[in-house]
């Protein structure tokens, strides 16, 4: 295959060809013009001129002959002078005629010379012969005969010249036509060929350039696999090679950076080191690599998976005493230590015993990059190459330094993660102990409380004697506080079960609408006692859901109790049950003290108490809403709270209807309790403490 040339070469080649063509056109035009001019010259300056000179020649000659006759007749010297002087004119015109003549007519010229010379000779001899002598008469006669012969010869030449002129005129016209046609053809070719060549060259060069441009754009958009096609002229090919090499190098270094990212993903030190060494092995073409870690006042090899393990270990063990301070200085200066050729004088900076080990390993170039956190040097990466043809590049050094930094951060992360893991384990242990304690204590509270309830009922039944009204009133107070204590214990047990993961719901088909009157009836007396209006809006239709009836009842009881408890006298509590968007909806709305906006996000947490409730000394455990949230979660529903401090709170619970798959709603996804932060109600910040 022919070696491709550069664009410049082809540009020069094209220019050269173009110049040659232009030159050819010029030469052709000039040659054509010269040829035409030659033809025209022959026609006008030679043939026609020759006709004229030939006529002049005849005139000169006849002048001499007339002068000769004149002298013969009169003997006057002035005729003789003309006879002689016109000979000179004749000869010079004859020379001119010969100069104009071409081979085809030259004979006609020289033939005239023969007759003219004879006439001049005879005439010249006649004028010096004795006047009126026979000799003179004979000479004059001879001159006359030669003169006649000359005239005939001159006329023949004249006729021939006239004929030649006709031929030359036709030839000149034909030549002119051929020249014009040829010029037009070559000129057209001279214009068309460069244009065609330019178009081909443009296509030949522009297509590869466009491919390269597209490749660069693809890479700019993130297509790392994009590579330029190597086609076209040599320099375009070179450009494609260079871009591909740059892409390869970029990818290689990007791989190193990706490896760096992976290093930081690891939370254990051995994994960090293994990842780092694997990245170096894979992307940096090293023969040997190891990671030295600072340990006390020395260095130890963190990992070494190479055949030269023993040499490296021995070398590390024999490092000079000042190695660690040197390493710390190197780290502080944010520099790497690089020797491109250990055999060169630069390699003599290394202690001889270390250098000899490295050379024995076949190492040629060395790159050492320290790493650490803050001011603390943690170790160093040591990379060796055995190929003298691949010295360390600046980009490689930067990549190794970046990698070293990531190793340091990875090790630090691993160290911090390890400490956190310990702390979490301790906290989890404490939490489990607390829960166990709470469950145990709560359980233990039940036994004496059962005994208290039993004895109080026996007293109230009169088994311990007659009960006075005062005692009856006091026993009523005992019942109420026992009930509160039972509810508290029940809530704490429920919380314990929730935290232990033992709080489950026994879901069965239930008509939610049927549960509403029961719960409302249980709360209505206390609402009435508190001076509140209590409205219940329940549908006539069935709201069939899968639910645990007891837990739903508890859910409604907790929500309605909270509404009654945190609504001042004269307020209103409303319970609404209805169907909306494939859900059964329970809405408890009050006009109570609400929940401060900034506290609403924590409303479903354990032991949550709104700050305004605490300030108002309204008693509560802070467990009610947390239990409600867990119940809703167990029922694959969701709960929403909107509240505005001083204006009231609305809690909306939605449970999926049986056999109804609400569009865009997945039960589990909506099971987490939440406080609404959007919408008009949410903006009002309604809520209430628990």
């Amino acid at each position, binding site marked *: 295959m022919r070696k491709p040339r550069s664009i410049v070469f082809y540009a020069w080649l094209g220019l050269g060809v173009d110049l040659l063509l232009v030159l050819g056109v010029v030469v052709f035009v000039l040659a054509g013009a010269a040829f035409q001019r030659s033809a025209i010259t022959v026609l006008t300056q030679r043939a026609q001129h020759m006709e004229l000179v030939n006529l002049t020649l005849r005139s*000169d000659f006849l002048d*001499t002959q007339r002068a000769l006759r004149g002298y013969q007749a009169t003997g006057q*010297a*002035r005729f*003789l*002078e003309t006879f*002689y*002087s*016109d*000979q*000179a*004119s*004749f*000869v*010079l015109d*004859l*020379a*001119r005629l*010969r*100069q104009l003549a071409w081979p085809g007519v030259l004979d006609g*010229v*020289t033939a005239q*010379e023969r007759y*003219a*010379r004879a006439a*001049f*000779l005879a005439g*010249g*001899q006649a*004028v*010096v012969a*004795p006047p009126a002598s026979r000799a003179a008469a004979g000479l004059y006669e001879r001159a006359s005969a030669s003169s006649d012969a000359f005239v005939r010869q001159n006329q023949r030449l004249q006729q021939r010249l006239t004929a030649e002129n006709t031929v030359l005129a036709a030839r000149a016209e034909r030549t002119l036509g051929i020249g014009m046609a040829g010029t037009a053809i070559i000129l057209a070719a001279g214009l068309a060929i460069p244009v065609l060549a330019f178009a081909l060259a443009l296509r030949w060069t522009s297509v590869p350039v466009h491919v390269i441009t597209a490749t660069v754009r693809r890479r700019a958009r993130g297509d790392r696999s994009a590579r330029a096609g190597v086609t076209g002229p040599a320099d375009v090919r070179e450009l494609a090679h260079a871009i591909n090499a740059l892409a390869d190098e970029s990818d290689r270094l990007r791989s190193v950076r990706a490896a760096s990212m992976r290093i930081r993903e690891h939370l254990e030190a051995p994994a960090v080191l293994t990842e780092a060494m694997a990245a170096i092995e894979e992307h940096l073409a090293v023969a040997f690599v190891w990671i030295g870690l600072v340990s006390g006042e020395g260095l130890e090899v963190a990992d070494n998976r190479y055949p030269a393990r023993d040499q490296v270990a021995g070398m590390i063990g024999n490092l000079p005493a000042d190695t660690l301070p040197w390493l710390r200085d190197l780290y502080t200066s944010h520099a790497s230590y690089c020797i491109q050729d250990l055999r060169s004088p630069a390699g003599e900076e290394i202690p001889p015993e270390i250098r000899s080990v490295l050379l024995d390993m076949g190492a040629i170039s060395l790159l050492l990059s320290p790493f650490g956190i803050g001011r603390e040097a943690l170790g160093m990466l040591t990379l060796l190459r055995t190929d003298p043809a691949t010295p360390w590049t600046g980009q490689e050094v930067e990549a190794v330094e970046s990698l070293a930094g990531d190793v340091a951060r990875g090790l630090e992360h691993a160290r911090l993660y390890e400490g956190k893991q310990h702390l979490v384990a301790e906290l989890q242990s404490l939490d489990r102990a607390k829960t166990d304690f709470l469950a145990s204590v709560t359980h233990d509270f039940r036994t004496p409380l059962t005994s208290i309830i039993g004895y109080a009922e026996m007293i109230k039944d009169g088994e311990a004697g007659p009960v006075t009204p005062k005692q009856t009133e006091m026993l009523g107070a005992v019942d109420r506080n026992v009930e509160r204590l039972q509810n508290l214990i029940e809530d704490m047990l429920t919380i314990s079960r929730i935290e232990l993961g033992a709080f489950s719901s026994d879901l069965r088909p239930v008509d939610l609408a049927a549960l509403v009157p029961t719960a409302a009836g249980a709360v209505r007396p206390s609402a009435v006692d508190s001076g509140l209006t209590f409205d219940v809006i329940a549908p006539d239709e069935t709201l069939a859901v899968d639910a645990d009836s007891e837990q739903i009842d508890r859910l409604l009881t907790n929500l309605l109790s909270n509404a009654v408890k945190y609504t001042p006298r004269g307020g209103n509590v409303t319970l609404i049950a209805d169907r909306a968007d494939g859900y059964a909806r329970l809405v408890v709305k009050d006009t109570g003290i609400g929940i401060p906006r900034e506290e609403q996000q924590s409303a479903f947490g354990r032991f949550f108490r709104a700050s305004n409730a605490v300030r108002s000394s309204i008693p509560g455990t802070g467990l009610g809403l947390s239990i409600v949230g867990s119940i809703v979660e167990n029922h694959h529903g969701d709960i929403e709270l909107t509240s505005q401090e001083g204006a009231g709170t609305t809690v909306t619970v939605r449970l999926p209807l049986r056999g109804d798959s609400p569009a865009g709603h997945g039960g589990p996804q909506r099971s987490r309790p939440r406080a609404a932060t959007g919408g008009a109600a949410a903006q009002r910040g309604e809520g209430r403490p628990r």
Partner: protein
Amino acid sequence: MTSGLPVPGVAGQLTRRRLLRGAAAGAGLGAVALGTGLSACSAPGPAPVPVPPAAADQSRTRKVVRFVNWYDYIDVTPSGVSPTLMEFTRQTGIKVDYTPLFADANQALGLVGIALAAGKDPGYDLVVVADWMLAQFIEQGWVAELSPGLLTNARRLRPQFRDWPVPDLPRYALPWQGGFTGIGYNAKVTRRPVTGMTDLLTAPDLRGRVSLVSDMRDVVGLVLLDQGSNPADFTAAEFGRALAMLRRSVAVGQIRMVTNNYLPALAKGTVAAGVAWSGDILYARQLSPALGFTWPEGGGMVWTDNMMVPALAPVRANAERLMNFYYQPAVAAQLAAFNRFLCPVLGTQAVMGRLDPALARERYIFPAPALLDSGHYFKILSRAQIAAYTAAFQTAVGL
């Protein structure tokens, strides 16, 4: 061997060369600008017509040289042979085919140059041409350069002619003979010498008895010199002033005739004085001792006829040997004794002293350098100038 040589002593033939020579000198109407070496003064002419390269010299195989000259311009015996040519043939074994052909300078073109113009053998190997015609031949490239190795006697050329009228003249030619243009007079008629052109053209005692040659250059050149102008470098105004003098002379009847055949009238006394050539007067004085020649007070004109080898001549070496032969003082003396024109060969005067002491003292055959230095040539004219000046001259003198 020589052939065709006219017998000297016949009056008609005696003066033929001299009577007709000047006609050519002023009749170059058809000529273009003259002289390679004078090109700085010449107007541009047509490009020279190159002749084909000369074939190899055939002198070794062809023992002949074809020599063409003016009529009556070589020594001849009453039997019609040339002693010098015979001597040359005797010494070298080279036959000389001698042709006395020219009666006019332009004939060198009409009879020799015509063949060269046609690219052919000119028919002659050695040609004697007037100085200005030599320049024209050189201009056309029709002259073969000489071989110094064969022309060992060329060193005897009078130094005044080495660069005049052609620079480096020996490169192309050697003078055959030279001459002066001055004033001839018949002392029997004038009873006094005629001293200059003003005297000639205005003296009352010469009225009606003056002749002029028909050559514009000779006559106008002498008038220009008489008026203090330089014939080699004059203005149109100076030329006009010279013509005005001639017109006045014609108008008052001073001029009797304008002809180159002035010797018979001068010898007879019909013409008392006129413009004349030195050789003519010296030769005619053998028959008419009263004839005299005056070198004008303002100076006179000097000319030469030159031997040249035409291009395409087949036996150039033979021609050069003949040229070299005539540059021997003894041979040159023989020629000068016959022609009585200016001898261009140094050392000839001493030989002449032994042959004819009277001729050896003749200042116009063997001039002193000062006399030669006072000679002038006419400036080179363009073709248009020649036509215009000649026409104006002929109108002025009534030709």
